[in-house]
């Protein structure tokens, strides 16, 4: 409690009193929590609701499911209702079937006697329950694991290639003197001006001609080298003293060995930042996969999600569960690494 109090009284006003601007600030921040986290929380809660619960309007805050009971002589569990009027008022009955405005009910304690009641006089007995079947059915009904694997494969492979290729280039541009270095730097800046979005058509031709249409490699390779990565790593590698490289050369290390035994380990912080960014970019990538991957067995999670929201208009149970599973890996990355991500973004200044 003391902590909460400290928190609330961390003020600009002197004498421990809250200045009105502090109230406004904290108000804004808590509104921020509500607006930023609220929708995601609502998504997660909703994903645990049953089909019936989802269709309820107005919706309940938490996922509820109707209680059921097994009654001798019936194979399926029967839904329970509590009577709010009529002759059985106060009793809890199980419903057999509903006919128009009438329902056939039985008392679970006395299953042989069938009772007819007006549906206006009953209310379902509900309890909190997580509809985990929304998730399990994903694996049964869809090729979910395939999509997950496609996304993972693209993300991991593309990130690995990008880290290697970009760090090699950054090494050359930061630690060697050679004719044409400034020209190459200019080229890198040039690619900064060519986002994928403006060369979609010719890129499509090239990727098709290389036989990578409808192949995961067609998504991985074209974006495998990024100007941002080169700049980020070069900026960091420049700070490594040249004498360390000279020392390694005197130690009979080849240039390649210097690269992966000295430069790469020493650039680990920058490489980690780039890795996180790359994972984020690739996992969330949408437009290019949308163009290159047209067969559903090649779909990434993002594509699958997008195409199902078209096909399954009303099947929100599957859609919500799939959305949660898609954001889960990124949420985990966020939870553990958000500090690095923040520094990374701040240091690249965007892109």
């Amino acid at each position: 409690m003391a902590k909460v109090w400290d928190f609330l009284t961390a003020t600009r006003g002197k004498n421990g009193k809250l200045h009105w601007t502090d109230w406004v600030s904290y108000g804004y921040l808590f509104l921020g929590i509500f607006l930023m986290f609220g929708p995601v929380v609502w998504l997660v809660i909703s994903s645990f609701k049953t089909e019936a619960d989802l269709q309820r309007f107005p919706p309940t805050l938490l996922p509820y499911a109707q209680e059921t009971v097994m009654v001798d002589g019936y194979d399926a569990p029967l839904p329970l209702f509590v009577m709010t009027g009529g002759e059985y008022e106060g009793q809890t009955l199980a419903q057999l079937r509903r006919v128009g405005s009438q329902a056939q009910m039985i008392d679970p304690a006395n299953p042989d006697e069938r009772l007819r009641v007006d549906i206006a006089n009953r209310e379902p007995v509900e309890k909190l329950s997580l509809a985990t079947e929304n998730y399990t059915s994903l694996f049964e009904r869809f090729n979910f694991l395939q999509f997950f694997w496609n996304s993972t494969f693209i993300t991991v492979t593309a990130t690995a290639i990008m880290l290697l290729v970009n760090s090699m280039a950054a090494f050359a541009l930061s630690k060697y003197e050679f004719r044409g270095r400034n020209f190459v730097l200019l080229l890198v800046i040039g690619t900064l001006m060519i986002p994928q979005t403006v060369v979609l058509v010719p890129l499509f031709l090239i990727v098709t001609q290389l036989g990578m249409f409808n192949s995961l490699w067609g998504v991985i390779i074209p974006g495998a080298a990024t100007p941002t990565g080169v700049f980020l790593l070069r900026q960091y590698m420049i700070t490594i003293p040249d004498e360390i490289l000279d020392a390694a050369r005197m130690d009979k290390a080849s240039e390649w060995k210097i690269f992966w035994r000295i430069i790469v380990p020493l650039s680990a912080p920058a490489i980690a930042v780039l890795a996180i960014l790359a994972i984020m970019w690739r996992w969330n990538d949408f437009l290019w996969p949308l163009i290159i991957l047209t067969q559903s067995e090649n779909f990434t999670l993002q594509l699958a999600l997008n195409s199902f929201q078209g096909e399954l208009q009303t099947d929100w149970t599957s859609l919500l569960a799939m959305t949660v599973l898609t954001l889960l890996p990124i949420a985990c990355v966020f939870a553990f690494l958000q500090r690095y991500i923040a520094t990374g973004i701040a240091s690249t200044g965007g892109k």
Partner: protein
Amino acid sequence: MADVTLTNIEKSYGAAHVIKGVDLDIKHGEFCVFVGPSGCGKSTLLRMISGLEPISGGDLKIDEEVVNDVAAADRGLAMVFQSYALYPHMTVRQNLSFGLENLNTPKAEITQKVDEVAKMLQIDQLLARRPKDLSGGQRQRVAIGRAVVREPRVFLFDEPLSNLDAELRVDMRGEISRLHRRLGNTMIYVTHDQVEAMTMADKIAVLRDGLVEQYGTPLELYNTPGNIFVAGFIGSPKMNFLKGKVQGGALALATGETLALPTVGFNITEGAEVTMGVRPNALQPGSNGVHARVTGVEILGGESYIYATTDNDLALTVHSPGQTSVEIGNDITLAIDTNDVHLFDTGTTKSLRT
């Protein structure tokens, strides 16, 4: 055997001529120091020997073999850098092993050699640490150890003590000297500090503007400097210089005073412009010599320094043993030990010694 021979070595960056033809002959087992003011090219010369910097002209031989085009790694040299250049992400042991691993030395042998060297340099307690957890002196030892463990033909040192504090520097000086005696290898050592050069070297090469001004043993350089630059650079405090003209077998100064010249050992022509070099300890307050006014006195107990200016505002330094009674503002006459002076041609700055 590891003789290092430089023949007319040159280096230029584009139009800039940095090393202008250096000849040096460093014998096996010698401790050779390159000394000179900053920008004289001494570090460049060392890096050219190491192979880190390509040679623009001339021949570099190690053991009679021209190595101009041999890669740094294959010259069989080891280098200790000014910033130590330890691999920050490796432990001390890994730092020492890295070079041996690159030579494909068997693991057991590496361990044994590293342990041996670590013990010798008293860093065996530190093998598991990383460079950031070491003090300056310890890093220095590791850097030296990294060179020693390779058993190179020649050791190269690039101002290795300049990042240490004064006290530690004295200790390390002694330690590197001991190391040299123990290993007996050829060592080439670059410094801008002539005290380091004097105390450690077998041979000193004084460099200026990409040229060797003089190459010889410390005492040769001290006792018989070849020109005014070397005379002024070697020895602390600096040598005093008095310019004049030879008239009637004596040196006539601009102040009108005349100084006696040594009778033997120098090539003196009547009427020549000559600069007389006098070390501070060859100058004593006396009755007969150069007149000067005292501007500063430092009494250190066992010895004293007197700073004075001549009548034409030339600064002189006097080193006198014991505790002087001279005070600031005194007018004194400084007697010169004629047998202990150096004479140079004022025009060419070359020594007039025969």
